[in-house]
């Protein structure tokens, strides 16, 4: 065959975000395109940087707790739980079981709420308009429970270092039970809309493939890691609170050694079911008792050393490294944000895909920019 020279279209650099409906906040992605195919990408973040880690150094341990709610603002409860536990670990404090189970119930509800928000927006990104309204309807129920418990829906500041500030309100158990009974049916409803939908399958299967070894190399955690077939969950591997006392499964994707957007979708749906399972067990074990451990009004952890405590937040491993200097103020608080670390794998997942897939991949990583930028 004779040598052919091709008239190449110019490489197009397109700026997605920071004001773009599908970047879930103020993420800016610079995409290099060949036609509509992505040949490279760069995430530009920091538009929501508020210096939360710096603020921590200028607040007392208790004063800082409300700030962590503002990181992953769609999962404030788990943020707060991680922080409180990290400080409790630094103090070596024990938490009474009632507080532990309450925390678990609220955290699992929060996980469901966060996944619901993810599911709705993810589907919306892929052009399915209806699920978002259904998921928000159920999320509303969860937020109502939060509001009844602590007066806030979003940035709850539900827990205190040492336990709980408020005991559960009357009818909490009943409401949670009612919700968990109702919710399983609702998951089926979402699945009817999406799981076997041919277009949904085509849009999510084989899109944003992440091999397990890449997932580990990029330190991806949470549903993204599990979607790639790595059966690992902080709640199982290194249990905190009373997660070792309840039964639940760790769902993984369909493939051995790699995962795509559809795997992550399935994993998150399965996780919601597991959360309901945990909630049901935890509600059964709620016994009356103290809700606050032996932690003083003034928190002064022992000086000089640090602890790292990680929990399984809806987005992945949320870790807090708390360094104490013996005063009432933390010397340094480092947040290991799952969204930030997971977002790093975006370039790997997006390369070679089309623009439309970029949207799917951003959605499937499930980032919250408040947490990426902190």
């Amino acid at each position, binding site marked *: 065959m004779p040598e052919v020279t091709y008239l190449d279209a110019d490489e197009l650099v397109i700026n997605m975000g920071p004001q773009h409906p599908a970047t879930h906040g103020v993420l800016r992605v610079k995409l290099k395109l060949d036609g509509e195919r992505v040949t490279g990408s760069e995430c530009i973040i920091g538009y929501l940087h508020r210096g939360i880690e710096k603020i921590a150094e200028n607040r007392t341990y208790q004063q800082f707790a409300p700030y962590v709610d503002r990181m992953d603002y769609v999962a404030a409860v788990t943020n707060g739980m991680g922080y409180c536990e990290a400080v409790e670990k630094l103090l070596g404090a024990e938490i009474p079981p009632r507080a532990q189970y309450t925390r678990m119930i609220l955290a699992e509800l929060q996980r469901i709420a966060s996944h619901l928000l993810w599911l709705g927006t993810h589907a919306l990104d892929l*052009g399915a*308009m209806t699920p978002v309204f259904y998921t928000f309807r159920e999320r509303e129920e969860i937020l109502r429970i939060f509001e009844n418990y602590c007066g806030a829906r979003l940035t709850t500041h539900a827990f205190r270092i040492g336990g709980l500030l408020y005991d559960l309100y009357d009818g909490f158990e009943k409401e949670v039970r009612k919700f968990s009974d109702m919710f399983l049916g609702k998951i089926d409803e979402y699945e009817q809309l999406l799981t076997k939908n041919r277009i949904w399958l*085509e849009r999510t299967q084989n899109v944003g*493939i992440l091999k397990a070894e890449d997932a580990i190399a990029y330190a991806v955690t949470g549903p993204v890691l599990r979607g790639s077939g790595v059966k690992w969950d902080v709640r199982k591997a290194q249990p905190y609170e009373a997660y070792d006392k309840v039964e639940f499964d760790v769902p993984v994707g369909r*493939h051995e050694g*790699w995962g795509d957007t559809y795997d992550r979708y399935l994993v998150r749906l399965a996780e919601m079911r597991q959360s309901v399972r945990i909630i049901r067990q935890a509600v059964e074990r709620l016994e009356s008792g103290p809700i606050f451990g032996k932690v003083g009004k003034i928190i002064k952890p022992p000086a000089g050393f640090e602890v790292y405590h990680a929990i399984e937040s809806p987005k992945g491993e949320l870790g807090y490294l708390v360094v104490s200097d013996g005063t009432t103020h933390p010397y340094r608080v480092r947040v290991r944000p799952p969204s930030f670390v997971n977002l790093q794998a975006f370039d790997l997942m997006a390369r070679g895909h089309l623009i*439309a897939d970029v949207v799917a991949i951003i959605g499937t990583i499930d980032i919250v920019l408040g947490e990426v930028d902190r």
Partner: protein
Amino acid sequence: MFNDAVQFVENYPLLVAAIKIVIVFLVLSGVVAYMVLAERKVLAFMQARLGPMRVGPWGLFQPAADGLKLLLKEDIIPAGADKFVFLIAPVISVVAAFTVFAVIPYGPSSALIITDLNVGLLFVVAVSSLGIYGIILGGWASNSHYPLLGSLRSAAQLVSYEIPAGMAIVGVLLVSNSLSLVKIVEAQQSSGLWNFFLQPLGFLIFLIAAVAETNRNPFDLPEAESELTAGFHTEYSGFRFALYFMAEYTSMVLVSALAVVLFWGGWLRPFASVAALDFLNYLPPVSLLMIAGVVFFFARRNPVPAEKWFLVAVAAGSAVLAGVVAVPVVITAVQPIFWFTAKVFALLYAFIWYRATFPRYRYDQLMNVGWRWLIPLALGNLIATACVLWWAGPNPGRLKLFFAMLAANLAVAIVVALLVGWRSPTAAAVEKQTGS
């Protein structure tokens, strides 16, 4: 007096045509405006919410408010835009969409047909293919990346889907033996079989291609909001945006009307030849009465006095209208237009329904559906239809033709499915990538 009217029509054909055009234009604009409201309302009900409720009872005057708002908004022309092209692009879209309605027959009598071109079908295809220029040029003239990508996408999409749509239309042409839309409906009347029954595959292809050509979900890639913000009309605002909006909804009405004319028997009542279903003739007054009842029911619960009385008036009006329509003479006169509208609305409802249900296709998948599935299917359908017609000879029996066509369609579908296969072309790439 009746003779006077006939005289008038004969003396001033152009004037009469102009009057008809104005009437169709006004009615169509109203339909389009309320189509937007209907879409919002139907979507809302499917999604556990209410939709517009503020302007008038149940938001009934929302289209007026929207129109007014868009009229009064600033008309922004982006810096660096190709001004002339930017300004005319939306106009092209709207004009192309509206022009086609000139040849759509709304009923059997000449009063309900603006013009009956003997190449009506070709005219429809030709003019509706011009609408794309509004999209391409608008996107290009905006001098912005997202609109450009949007218009590139829609150029590829429209060209690709025009082929299967055209071939599906050719199938109808073969069956009906005419290019005139009026004759096509008349052929369906005389054979007693809608083309839908003779060309089920063709109808399916046409419907899919129609959804794609109107840029509607699940083929709404040129304006996919989550990918390209708003696609080709990202930079448009105010009235020009409204023009695009109007063009989109007008083309929806257009393709629905076309599908009805080509496949669903136009103005014919369903199963017009089955005497047992003659009670369907009374559907027009009955449905009006039902509307009156529903409106009255809601009027009683409406707390705002002004709205309440408005709704009561609407209910009363519908009831009176139902009474008028129930007069035997009127009922026959109203039949065609009623059935035509009802069928068009049924298809429009389907458009909304898709939007509530489907995710959006990806660009390459869209091309896949078009080129790998629809075009082979349409080609096969064309050949099969021609063969069956040749085999059946002139004036075949109705049932014979129906079953032969059904068998041929099934055979084509099966053969194409086997040939094209279920395996997606990306599967190999995935294997390469994951090493599995």
